[in-house]
């Protein structure tokens, strides 16, 4: 399946290579660089590139290209999904997944890659199992290791791989037993010029941080499970129980994991928490354009809209802007033509606005396209779909865990067309 893996940074250097079968020369990456050159934007490199003898499948994350070399038929998603899993694992281990972090921990990276694939076929991808095999580096451990000469490789043999719950490591112990669940919902929306919603949907996830001793068996129930239209689970969730009772029942992995992601059906009306009043005009023959933008809250269920960030790609003809924000700061990059305005919190009494003029290239005709406005925001303590967790129970262990549930709504791909 996966023959080799090359890690390529933004400047086109191969800084790590790993082969699972016989060695493939790194010159195979030349095809990738060719494709990179052809693509105008980094994200436009086709994920699958055929070469005379191999196929290159690549993903781009954290400005690093992970280029897998394969030789014969394999479902492309299989490779892509695996590569993303590798990145997630690195992130989990090193906190960040940057070129520097990978170079600093090259031995751990190599050991991880060795365990994750055998002969190109995934062997252990569960982070809980990997952590039993190879301990993640921490500052303390690095210090201890240099002094005592002990190792990062787990001394115990991993039993998790053999158990019926392969995602949980055995012998977990905590003094404070706690389980936190974050319900995070993202609104994806396209709003048209006149302010009406073209499409809007809610994508939610429940991320968990579970630190519980032993083998706890948890159940989580919702007040209104009918809201969830399409769900996908962590493998620990018992599917039949969900089908029958709409209850999430699971033995959780240790640590952080994504329990569930869901979709709220588009049949339900989606509340749009902010509105935008905009007036962006270019006049024919003049080298000036008007820019006028006001934000306001709408359907927020009484909660404050925070961390608002507005960004927009202005037309190529715009040379510079001179704008005046009523609050927050704005920047305009004359090279990329990217305008971004860090608004902060929306105060319903005094709506934030950004007004001023844009200077255009002299003599050029007026740009016929209007920029799209992308908005980011956060609303704490609110799940916009109205989803509510009813209760969380634990079986199988005797202690009383500390439980917590947090709700948050964020903007996903939230666009306003002008």
């Amino acid at each position, binding site marked *: 399946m996966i023959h080799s893996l090359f890690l390529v940074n933004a400047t086109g250097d*191969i800084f790590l290579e790993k082969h699972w079968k016989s060695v493939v020369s790194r010159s195979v990456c030349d095809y990738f660089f060719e494709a990179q050159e052809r693509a105008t934007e980094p994200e436009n490199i086709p994920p699958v590139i055929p070469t005379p003898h191999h196929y290159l499948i690549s993903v781009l994350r954290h400005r690093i290209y992970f280029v897998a070399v394969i030789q014969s038929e394999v479902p492309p998603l299989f490779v892509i999904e695996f590569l993303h899993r590798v990145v997630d694992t690195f992130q989990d281990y090193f906190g960040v997944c940057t070129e520097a972090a990978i170079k600093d921990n090259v031995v751990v990276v190599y050991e991880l890659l060795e365990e994750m694939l055998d*002969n190109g076929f995934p062997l252990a991808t569960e982070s809980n199992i990997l952590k039993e095999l190879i301990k993640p580096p921490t500052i303390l451990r690095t210090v201890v290791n240099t002094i005592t000469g002990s190792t990062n490789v787990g001394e115990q043999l991993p039993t998790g791989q053999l158990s019926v719950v392969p995602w949980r490591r055995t012998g977990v112990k905590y003094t404070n037993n706690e389980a936190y669940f974050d319900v995070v919902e993202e609104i994806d929306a396209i709003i048209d010029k006149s302010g009406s919603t073209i499409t809007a949907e809610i994508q939610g996830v429940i991320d968990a941080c579970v630190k519980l001793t032993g083998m706890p068996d948890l*159940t989580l129930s919702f007040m209104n499970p009918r809201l969830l239209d399409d769900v996908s689970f962590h493998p620990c969730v018992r599917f039949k129980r969900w089908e029958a009772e709409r209850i999430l029942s699971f033995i959780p992995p240790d640590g952080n994991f994504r329990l569930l992601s869901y979709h709220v059906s588009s049949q339900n009306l989606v509340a749009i928490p902010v509105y935008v009043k905009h007036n962006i005009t270019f006049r024919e023959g003049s080298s000036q354009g008007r820019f006028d933008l006001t934000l306001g809250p709408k359907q927020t269920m009484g909660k404050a809209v925070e961390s608002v960030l507005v960004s927009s790609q202005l037309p190529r003809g715009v040379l510079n802007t001179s704008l005046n924000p009523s609050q927050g700061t704005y920047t305009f990059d004359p090279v990329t033509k990217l305008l971004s305005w860090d608004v902060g919190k929306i105060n319903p009494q005094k709506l934030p606005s950004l007004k001023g003029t844009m200077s255009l290239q002299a003599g050029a005709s007026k740009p016929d396209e209007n920029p799209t406005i992308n908005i980011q925001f956060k609303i704490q303590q609110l799940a916009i779909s109205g989803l509510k967790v009813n209760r969380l129970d634990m079986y199988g262990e005797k202690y009383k865990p500390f439980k917590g549930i947090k709700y948050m709504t964020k903007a996903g791909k939230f666009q306003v067309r002008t």
Partner: protein
Amino acid sequence: LHSASQSELITSTESCFRHLHSLLPDDFLNIITLDLHDDLKEMLDSNKDSLKLEAMKRIVAMIARGKNASDLFPAVVKNVACKNIEVKKLVYVYLVRYAEEQQDLALLSISTFQRGLKDPNQLIRASALRVLSSIRVTIIVPIMMLAIKEAASDMSPYVRKTAAHAIPKLYSLDPEQKDQLIEVIEKLLADKTTLVAGSVVMAFEEVCPERIDLIHKNYRKLCNLLIDVEEWGQVVIINMLTRYARTQFLNPNINGGEKAFYEKKAEAAALAKRKPYVMDPDHRLLLRNTKPLLQSRNAAVVMAVAQLYFHLAPKAEVGVIAKALVRLMRSHSEVQYVVLQNVATMTIKRRGMFEPYLKSFYIRSTDPTQIKILKLEVLTNLANETNISTILREFQTYIKSMDKDFVAATIQAIGRCATNIGEVRDTCLNGLVQLLSNRDELVVAESVVVIKKLLQMQPEQHSDIIKHMAKLTDNIQVPMARASILWLIGEYCEHVPKIAPDVLRKMAKTFTNEEDIVKLQIINLAAKLYLTNSKQTKLLTQYVLNLAKYDQNYDIRDRARFIRQLIVPTDKSGALSKYAKKLFLALKPAPVLESPFKDRDHFQLGSLSHLLNAKAGGYQELPDWPESAPDPSVRNVEVKDSVRAGGTVTLRGRALGLSEESGSGSESEESEEESESEEEEEEEEDEEEERAKKKKKVDKSKPKKPESAESDQSSGEEQKRIRKGGKDRRSGTESESEDESESESSESESESEEESESDTDIKKKKKPTPSPQVTPVNSFLSNSLVTDLEGLSLTDTVLTIAPSSSVRLYELLHRITGEGLAVEYCFSRQPFSPDPHMVAVQIQFTNNTTSEAKSLHIEEPKLQSGMRIKEFPEIEVLPAGESVNVVMGIDFCDSTQAANFQLCTHIRKFFVSIQPPVGELMTPAFLTENEFKKEQGQLMGMNEISEKLTLGEKCQSEHVIVERVTSTANLSRVPCGSDKESRFAGKTVSSGSLVLVTVTRKDGAGALLTVNCEKMVIGTMLVKDILQALTQ
């Protein structure tokens, strides 16, 4: 000053070095690196582990950077037996990387791994095999082969999994070993653990994907295990099963319009002959068991299921995948890219499926261009009369985008919508014409090209557009667009007779400065005008042709020469010039604007080949459906096996039961159960032996049965007693695995693991003489055995074991009508071993005549659709006065319709029919109380039928009720806490739907009968029958 000079010094030495590098030959550099390596060698030779580790880390870092470290091989390989685990692992990494280059030296390490293969610890055995098989040295092929074979029958599933992984490695090293490897694969395919399943199917796909026959026996097991296999294995298994199903089952859409539409006549004739389509239950099993995986978090699994449904499911059911695929679109852009490609292909075949999700494909300005273009493709494919206006409105906003490649693609999309949907053709055309005044030249050019294609469809009505476009030649510079306009004017010069010569005049002026494709079209235009309007254009044409004659490009010179010969009549010109007009002005068919994704579905979706639209190496063609179904019985496995497979089905299912128990139970109980199940999985080897032991135990408990049947004790007490007995026996089993369960609860895992391993090793050695085979004769017994193995409580099954003494005999052929031959039949309630979906019917022939009856057999069964018959072997001779028993199997398809057939002797034929009472259409199912409640909870509403009744006089005690119910229907008793209630459970033979019966006694003779069954007809009939039995 001092520091300044120092830094100067440093820079100067640096530059010196750089100089050296550039000046010195490569050898010198090598010496330098070798020196470095000497340092590493020293570290490796030291006896301090920390130094070795440091050295290995540096070496691995070199490998990672792609630097050559092969000269260190001897120094590194020495450390292969190092005690330090991390050093060892890094040595393995090194070894696997360089063994191929240093074959001789690599052999030094082999003995270490061979020792490792014998280690008592399963994880060490596995890792030794893993490294050994990764060393690509041809000499050790026989050693590897031996190791793989041994590991394939290891008792640890983890080692067996590693063996499966090793198979493709060996195969790629030496393809000669194929036959032997296939044997190993065959063996591992029969493995029943989820851990092995994915890996062995992977090996199967790499080594022998054509040996589809190896799958038959394992098909059902794979389907049932699927949900518990790890996600990567799921992908491989699903893809393989898709191919398998294509060879073994019939096309479920054969009656649908699709095919009949194209090959109407042939198909219709074939249809007439063909029996109505009934889906093979195995086909259904696959579809049912893969569906939950659409909820997987792994995009590859979701895609695999989606393609399976697309290729295998009946049209009406494919829709379920749309939602899951749309969900994947939220994922990383690479995932989106692949999913959209597949969606694009699907939308061509089954547009309706994605129509509800139209808006999910709307394009955002932040999408990468390649995603935008794919989304556009999907939107175009989804366009139809009803949604076209929304789509066009959406397209209008896209045209204003800053991304010009995307705008160009949008214009093409509009063109395609216009050709596909007649109603909007004019609207689209008008819109495109407006775009001609766009400021961006690319947009204009693209519009021209698209308009050209549209106009070809109905040029007469659009001469004004052509005029408009003729004007554009003054401004537009994009060669493709200019060429298109010129072609259009030339082709339809009759519609614009005044403008065309003028355009030619202008073009003649600029001819020399034009691009090649434009020049060709100018020549083309000139030729066409010469033919239609030679008066005005003769000179112009001559001029253009003369210019072309001396052009730099030989294509153009060539074309000019060719055209001159063709159109200008000279005495030398041949016969062709007569037809010049026909040649040039022939009616050209309008271009069909097709999706590039059309017909891509002949590649298996989700595959690399589909994505590239070219066959990738190692791609297995998706076979066409067979014309007639191959024998479905190849997938049958012996009954005990199939029951067992059903038992191991789901870990999730089991974990479920576990959780319910753990609500009240303690931790220790849980871990106990777990260790038990683990042990059970690990010890396939010991299983036979265990079974033998358990069988003995069951035998021991068996004599109790008549007592319990006779005793008039209140049954609640009786239950308790039996349960106690069951528990005792269970604790008996536990005592065997006491070591494990104890060590499991203790903290030191690795130790306990070893301990338990060695423990099982000893057991293996102690293995007694081969256990007596469990004969399928008394399959009830083996059933209960299995349930016992599964850790279910045994409680009341003893009751059901009692062979129903009241087996009713039915008459098939009366002595008189049969002319002395009397035939009776009964439902023996034994599983019919050749096919578990059939009801066993025992038939008794009695010959009352004075002569022999010969060759008794069945002929011409007349069956309802879906029903099947398995005839008994022909009875050659039945002597006078004798009788004989045979068993035949009938699949009634869960209906009480009679099976009609002819019973033949050597002289006569008799029409007979067998009609089953509803109670015989089921087999007992063994459930625990909790399972029963849970299943009942799922079968509420329409599926539940309740009836009040008054119990008959003799029918007041629970004992009698149980007897009556079990004699009416082939059900098993389910344990129950309350003594007022009796519960029974069974499954229909053919489809396996659960049948749950509850009888609740009220005060006096009143009672409530509840039947829960998915099949309402069966439920209703069963209520009627039981009611009758209880009220008598």
